[in-house]
């Protein structure tokens, strides 16, 4: 506290309101260079996600703009059978036309057909031989796919982590604050979930949810979010519960009781702000974990549907592409995910340091 005050050059007035936890944490975070760089990267990815959601970037990711497996533009000279084929086709048109009408039984109708086809306008977009970061099997731009994939993966990670934090915090708060029979019951509930190995729990939920006819309309993103949130809340519950046990007997909570605050008011208005930093760190940690999990689930075909794209489905396509030497889809999905996850985990570490009330 005093260190902060001496840093300000002008003499601070005596009655200056002392900065709160969040103000102090923000100041500490600003001093952390790695933290700030990761924050910028994460914000960039979030903006990218919003942009692609609004259709500003990667709006035509599903358009087949290049030849199949178009080369990345920085290695335009590489072998590409489809590009070669297109050139051969273009040359083939110059081959002189041989009149076969005397032996062709359909010849009299050619004229009629030609007239008909002339009425229909076909605008064939010229397919380019190279794309910025290459093309996939159908000639879609891999870079745009990676952005669109980021949108799906980040959305799933964020929303699932949010739900898991809400579930974990609510149950943990009730269990830690109430204790007694309710606490025992919630502990039992927690033990059930933790005694099943995590991977197995996810797969069991995935099996049930995906075979249920009544949940069929929620296939895809909502279902992945539900699977991850229902299985991933346990760690948060554990931490929040121990925090609430600690806080429930503190003086400020007793004071709140004395002025007649109800249980729920004490739990969520008085104590919750004091443990919210734990929630935030857990939230950001779970975003990373869930993004990784979503990629694996989508890869296995248990995640987002085939018509949308995520980093997981890109990796699933990339596996067979690598064998024929088309590495760029693997690189695009792998690198963009690695950048985001690295930045997010380093941001989590910085947040944890910045929010630690013991460091002033």
């Amino acid at each position: 506290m005093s260190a902060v005050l001496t840093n300000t050059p002008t003499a601070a007035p005596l009655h200056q309101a002392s900065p709160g936890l969040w103000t102090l944490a923000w100041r500490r975070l600003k001093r952390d260079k790695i933290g700030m760089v990761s924050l910028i990267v994460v914000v960039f990815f979030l903006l990218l996600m919003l942009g692609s959601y609004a259709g500003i970037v990667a709006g035509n990711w599903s358009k087949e703009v290049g030849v199949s497996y178009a080369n990345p533009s920085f290695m335009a000279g590489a072998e590409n059978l489809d590009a070669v084929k297109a050139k051969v086709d273009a040359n083939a048109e110059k081959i002189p036309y041989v009149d076969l009408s005397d032996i062709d039984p359909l010849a009299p109708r050619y004229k009629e057909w030609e007239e008909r086809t002339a009425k229909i306008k076909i605008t064939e977009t010229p397919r380019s031989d190279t794309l910025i970061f290459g093309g996939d099997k159908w000639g879609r731009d891999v870079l745009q796919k990676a952005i669109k994939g980021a949108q799906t993966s980040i959305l799933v990670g964020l929303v699932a982590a949010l739900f898991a934090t809400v579930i974990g915090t609510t149950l943990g708060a009730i269990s830690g604050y109430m204790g007694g029979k309710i606490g025992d019951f919630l502990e039992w509930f927690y033990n059930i979930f933790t005694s099943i190995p995590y991977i197995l729990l996810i797969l069991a939920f995935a099996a049930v949810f995906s075979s249920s006819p009544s949940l069929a309309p929620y296939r895809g993103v909502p279902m992945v979010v539900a699977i991850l949130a229902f299985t991933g809340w346990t760690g948060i519950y554990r931490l929040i519960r121990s925090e609430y046990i600690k806080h429930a007997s503190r003086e400020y909570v007793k004071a709140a009781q004395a002025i007649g605050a109800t249980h729920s008011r004490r739990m969520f208005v008085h104590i919750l702000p004091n443990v919210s930093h734990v929630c935030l760190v857990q939230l950001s940690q779970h975003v990373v974990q869930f993004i990784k999990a979503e990629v694996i689930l989508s890869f296995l075909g248990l995640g987002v549907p085939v018509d949308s794209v995520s980093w997981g489905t890109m990796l699933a396509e990339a596996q067979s592409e690598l064998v024929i030497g088309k590495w760029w889809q693997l690189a695009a999905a792998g690198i963009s995910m690695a950048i985001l996850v690295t930045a997010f985990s380093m941001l989590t570490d910085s947040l944890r340091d910045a929010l630690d009330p013991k460091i002033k």
Partner: protein
Amino acid sequence: MGAYVLRRLWQMIPTLAGVMLLIFVLFNWVGGDPALVLAGKITNKEQIENIRKQLGVDQPSYIQLAYFGFEVATGFTCTWRSYTEKPTDSPKPTADAKADTKTDTKADTTDAAKAAPSGCQAVRSWATNEEVPKILTSRIGPTLTIMIPVLILETVFGVILAIGVAYVRGSLTDRMIMMVCTVAMSISFLVYIIVAQYYFGFKWGMFPVQGWSDSFWKNLTTYAPLPILLAVFVGLAPALRLYRSFFLDEINNDYVRTARAKGLAEKTVMLKHVLRNAMIPILTNIGIALPGIFVGSFLLESFFSIPGLGREILVAVNRSDFPVIKAATVYLAMITMLINLAVDVLYKAVDPRVSFK
């Protein structure tokens, strides 16, 4: 000690009951009508009704739950229906025959139960009609062939590297290694597997791309090395970071200073004093990871065509083969609880300060 173990075993009962309840609720209610899942594309009402009877889902839910409890208690080797029922002539009902036969369940059940416990029929997989206990026991071997070496190698390398890194804490080497670990951890496991399988297996031919055999030795020396190396490599970064923090927690303690002050060699201080104290949280961590070796890495198993438990569960999930998933979940939960107990008892051996309450 004996009393402690007994009490812990006693406490497992409600948890296990809860696990069974969760699985029951998930697979019988949330997952929709199990008969419809099994029936698949059959739309004949009568056949579906038969399947429903066959599975026992025409009964009230508490009886269904009792059926499930009986199956769990007998290790899925005996369904309640087959136990109480007169043994039928066709012991191996096929998917279609199942629906047609054995509709007369009420007939002389009591006599048959006394006379012929041999009428027991194991729960069968919906997809392959294989007996579920056989599936699970035959798949566990390959999984352990991969996962036990992984756990051993990961722990040994993790501890050795972590103690080295913790010793030079704060130096450039330390920071570089931690940085590499963070980046390595953020690359998807999928990318590692795809790339390694392509280069080591396909392109350079150092290992077989995939496969498995009947001989344990051949598996361990030919087919297992690449998956094992991959899992160790990927698992090393998080282990190193974690173990390093355990060593750092110990390295600043007073007893370390005392040991140095009395003139002990650095090697003795690190390997005798610090290592032994840091082993306690490391053991906890291994205890947490231990149940996971039974599930195995389902990704590795499916990429490398290893007929292990993880791949089996994954296949079952894709086929909506509920009996296999249910059985695997219940038994792995039991194994997890027993391992946790074993780890807690082992603490006593490692740390004399621990006492059983």
